[in-house]
């Protein structure tokens, strides 16, 4: 187990290295000169003498060899310095401190909702396979993995926001400011973002339950005279959860991707919306920071999921 964890950690560090190279060099493939873009957005480009541009270039360290720039960038990231946004004239770290909690609130709520309801729906569909409950749940899970999130958001806004006026159609309020309003504003975005994961988890849960139910040890459990509750919840469900946990881990990336769309539809000032506006505003420092942060989170979650396998399933021996 320990050797496995160490090997997995080394592997993750190697992947992290490639991630930093990708993020850094993708941004360097940019057609424009970053200094010219910066100058064009801060002041009149024509009014700036060439010496001053060179001066700026030197200040930003852009006149040094590319590998030196890469290591400088890495070093500043380790110090928690992601640079300064061209558009907002603010430290990217400060921007992130504002935006990240919003996306985390939205994303974590969706992840948890999708995990709990997904496992529950899959469990019910498997236990009642072929009955009406299964016949309702299973087709719904197919729809859940195909519906475009942004479109689902618009449908919900139309129905619950505009026609029925039950819920606010946009915006975000911190739960510490006004918990009730915050929750009401989040109902629709969280539902949208949770649907894909919920459906995927339910499908996986159902199929792995159906497989496990046929195992010998489940028959033994029945034969011992254990109650249905005990057999299903303790013996079958625990083992069926293992593949679902991988999916929940993968869901983190999907939720970050989906939050870009959902935050746009519901006008939520999180990282996803910042990402879109920064891309259109050519605010590459911000794009670079967000991309990097999300990739690192996804990487760490995958590492945790892999390692937690041993805890959930002691049969797994790490070679």
């Amino acid at each position, binding site marked *: 187990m320990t050797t496995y964890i160490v090997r997995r950690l080394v592997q993750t560090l190697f992947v992290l290295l490639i991630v930093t190279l990708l993020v850094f060099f993708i941004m360097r493939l940019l057609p424009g000169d970053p200094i010219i873009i910066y100058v064009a957005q801060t002041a009149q480009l024509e009014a700036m003498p060439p010496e001053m541009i060179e001066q700026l270039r030197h200040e930003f360290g852009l006149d040094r060899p590319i590998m030196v720039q890469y290591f400088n960038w890495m070093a500043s990231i380790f110090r928690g310095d992601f640079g300064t946004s061209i558009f907002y004239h603010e430290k990217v770290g400060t921007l992130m401190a504002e935006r990240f909690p919003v996306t985390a609130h939205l994303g974590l709520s969706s992840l948890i909702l999708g995990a709990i309801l997904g496992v529950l729906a899959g469990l019910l569909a498997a236990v009642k396979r072929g009955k009406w409950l299964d016949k309702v749940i299973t087709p719904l899970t197919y*729809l859940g993995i195909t519906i*475009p999130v942004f*479109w689902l958001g618009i449908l919900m806004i139309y129905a619950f926001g505009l026609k029925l006026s039950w819920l606010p159609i946009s915006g975000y309020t911190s739960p510490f400011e006004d918990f009730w309003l915050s929750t009401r504003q989040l109902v629709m975005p969280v539902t949208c973002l949770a649907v894909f994961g919920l459906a995927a988890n339910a499908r996986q849960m159902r199929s792995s339950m159906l497989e496990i139910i046929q195992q010998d040890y489940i028959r033994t459990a029945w034969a011992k005279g254990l109650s249905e509750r005990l057999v299903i919840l303790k013996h079958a469900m625990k083992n069926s959860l293992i593949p679902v946990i991988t999916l929940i881990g993968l869901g983190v*990336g999907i939720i970050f991707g989906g939050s870009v769309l959902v935050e746009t539809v519901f006008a939520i000032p999180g990282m996803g919306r910042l990402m879109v506006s920064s891309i259109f505003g050519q605010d590459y420092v911000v794009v670079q920071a967000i991309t990097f942060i999300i990739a690192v989170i996804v990487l760490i979650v995958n590492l945790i999921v892999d390692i937690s396998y041993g805890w959930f399933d002691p049969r797994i021996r790490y070679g």
Partner: protein
Amino acid sequence: MAEKPDNIIDFQEAPPRVSEWRRFRRVFLSRGVVVFGMVILLLLLFTAIFAAWLAPYDPYKPGEAKSLVQPSWEHPLGSDILGRDTLSRLIYGSRTALMVGFISVGIASVFGVTLGVIAGYFSGAINVIIMRAMDSLLCFPMILLALVLASVLGGGIQNVIIALSIATIPGYARVTCGVTLSIKENDYILAERSIGSSDFRTMLKHILPNAFPPLIVLMTMQLGNLILAEAGLSFLGIGIEPPGAAWGAMVSDGYRYLLKNPVLSFAPGLAIMLVVFAFNMVGDGLRDALDPRLRGLL
């Protein structure tokens, strides 16, 4: 009568080749939803090919109708703010969806399969570098990676295709690498190499055919995912330039007039969902018919 010599192969005993196809067809068509998906896909293909004949109006010309007219006999799905017929734009949008889907799958699978077979065949450092590079690509959510690449390369549909292709390469590489690793230990690969066949020939003739069933299933399912991702990108305003028609962009355009004319947003979204659903179902059916062991893996 002389006895039948041993060295003549009795063709009667070999199972007829057609039965394999029959078995495939029987399993593939056994589920109603799969047949439904297949019908939708054929309709989609038909619509995309014959868009010019099927569309009742010019999809790009403003003023074919009054601005934002409600659905009627002349304009079954109404018209957008510029007075363009929504049904015609929907029909032309199928071309964008299919084009992005098919070209991206083509590019991604060529690169992904090549990288995967190389990584699996030559284990060691090459394997580690290729597969870890694939892992690092997978750390970026598809739509995010596509957004970043599209912003670096500039908008336009061809850059969306490049971006989506790069984002989906790891899937093919992983599948091919896995198949290669399990196949290359077989004796027939050893035999092939011992008669002096080159690495390239071994990979092409003996390893790749084994990867075909999972790859064809993956490609079908990826078509759905790619169409969904393209819709998301064009919803955000990245991709096809106006006046071109893309379903995601149509949903976004209609969103502004949601109360006045909800069908503008509803219809293209429904089209996206139907098509993605169809690709998923056909992928499911192909998996069950080609190799049921892939269930749960793909």
